[in-house]
């Protein structure tokens, strides 16, 4: 039973607009959340993270929001660029270091 869920398998967005990716989790023991980006035939690469004691973390065009009461986090990409086209994975980690991922969302940025 996957404890990290990304319910949107794909997202299409115009270049320059905002991309919003969503993620839900079920395990209240998760205390650290991360987003990864993956291109075909490569390993995932780290994008941005947030601790459970925070509700927002920003890094350039990327912002992650955490709503603990709803067990929900989101990633905002503003503005979206063609190079952002990739699969994005949400991940969550508990205090024992167990790191679990969602199913991913394929983002396509169109001109």
């Amino acid at each position, binding site marked *: *039973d996957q404890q990290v869920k990304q319910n949107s398998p794909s997202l299409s967005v115009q270049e320059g607009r905002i991309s919003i990716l969503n993620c839900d989790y079920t395990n209240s023991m998760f*205390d*650290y959340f991360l987003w990864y980006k993956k291109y075909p035939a490569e*390993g995932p690469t780290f994008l941005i*993270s947030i601790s459970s004691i925070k509700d927002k973390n920003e890094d350039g065009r990327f912002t992650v929001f955490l709503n603990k009461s709803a067990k929900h986090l989101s990633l905002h990409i503003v503005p979206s660029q063609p190079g952002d086209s990739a699969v994005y*994975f949400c991940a969550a980690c508990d205090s024992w*270091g*167990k*790191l679990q*991922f969602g199913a991913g969302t394929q983002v396509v940025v169109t001109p």
Partner: protein
Amino acid sequence: DAGITQSPRHKVTETGTPVTLRCHQTENHRYMYWYRQDPGHGLRLIHYSYGVKDTDKGEVSDGYSVSRSKTEDFLLTLESATSSQTSVYFCAISDRGRVEAFFGQGTRLTVV
């Protein structure tokens, strides 16, 4: 790039044979992970290690075993390969287990 190497990168094997995948790191990171990536399922955790000889199961551990006899190597063994284990396998390493993990390039395994 983090020093993490997976071997082999590609393998075709027959049903019922044992297979071992190797993950080697040069970063001296404490945590190591094995994942499989399948369409529609994303990355699913098979096993992970939080130290030498310390391992624990993930979401999809049935049919897999792991060993970590030294910090730098984490081995994943398919005891008797089945077609359902055809997948891309990724190893990851992390320094503190609660920060970013670095991934290897992946191993594409085909069981025929």
